[in-house]
């Protein structure tokens, strides 16, 4: 039978207890162990060591641990996701888009054509001017000269209605919206 050195036997001892040796090598190792007490002791020590290692292996965690794991991991992942590089540009795009919309609106507002009336006169001023015009304009004097006194004149009812018609022709509702003159 082939003989091996103690150092080679040591390698084979570990390999045999770990993965197992091919049958012919195992035969050679067993032959060596029968003859060498030192290697036999090494074999026992190695066997004991590997068994102790396996015994000392921590137990698998309970289900409650895995529930906690998943919960806390989801929280950490969401935090990470909020800081992810592909999330940030979308936020930036959103901000840029919002800013663009605001700028566009402001730009359109400033460039929008306005009527001259709007620029020169506000609506309330327009109304006041219109009323003042009606009250003090020359046209109102002309109307004031047209007088009618049924007590001292010989105007008949037809003439009265004629004056009234003339007055209405001069002042229609559009000219006197506030009803100041009629």
């Amino acid at each position, binding site marked *: 039978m082939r003989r091996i050195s103690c150092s080679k036997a*040591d*390698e084979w001892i*570990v*390999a045999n207890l*770990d993965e197992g040796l091919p049958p012919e090598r195992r035969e050679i190792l067993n032959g060596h162990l029968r003859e060498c007490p030192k290697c036999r002791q*090494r074999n026992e*020590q*190695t066997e004991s*060591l*590997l068994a*102790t*290692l*396996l015994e*000392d*292996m*921590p137990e*698998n*965690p309970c289900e409650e*641990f*895995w529930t*906690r*794991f*998943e919960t*806390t*991991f989801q929280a*950490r*992942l969401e935090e*990470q*996701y909020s800081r*992810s590089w592909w999330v940030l540009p979308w936020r930036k795009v959103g901000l840029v888009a919002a800013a663009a919309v605001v700028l566009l609106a402001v730009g359109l507002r400033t460039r929008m054509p306005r009527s001259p009336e709007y620029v020169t006169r506000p609506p309330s001023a327009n109304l006041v001017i219109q009323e003042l015009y009606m009250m003090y304009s020359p046209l109102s004097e002309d109307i004031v000269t047209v007088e009618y006194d049924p007590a001292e004149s010989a105007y008949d009812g037809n003439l009265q209605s004629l004056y009234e018609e003339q007055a209405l022709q001069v002042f229609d509702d559009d000219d006197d919206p506030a009803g100041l003159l009629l």
Partner: protein
Amino acid sequence: MFIADFFISRIRNVLVLYCRTGAKMNDESLVREFRNGSAEAFSELVRRHSRQLTTMILRMTRDEEEAKDISQTVFLKAYTGLSKFIMASSFKTWLYSIALNTVRDHIRRRKPPMGSEAIDELADTAASSGDRLDRARTLKRLRDAIEELPHKQRLTLQLRVYEDMEYSGIAAILGGTEGAARANFFHAVKTLRKKLGGEE
């Protein structure tokens, strides 16, 4: 229009993923779906690997809270790093590489090895007879000896013994060849045997 297209594509991704997970999409397909914007694909990857990965980290740190934090950190690193993952290795190998580096950084920063009170804790958990106290001391010496191993030897030992991982997988995660991984395991065992058995 562009925003509408974006949301439609997101909805499509989720629906496609929902249909396909029934047929067990592989990790690489899920990575591709995630890159196309499917958050559900990443959740599926987490569901697949979180338990095994966290358990592995727990076996290395021996502390549930630390293991939880480290494991979550690993997945968050994967989340941000997936866009740069070139798929030269499998997703699992890549994930475990991140995990082992994170564990290594954590152990470097961690408090010094356990003191004498740790032996009492170990003895208490195993009852109080003389034999069990001896056993607690042995476990303490073993853990200290493992902590003192060179980084690659320690990881190789833990992956091989605790995770029952093939040497090809260990080599892929830690870098190097299968032969180098076997040699690391052999030297780790030899060192521990010497420290525990007083062998010269």
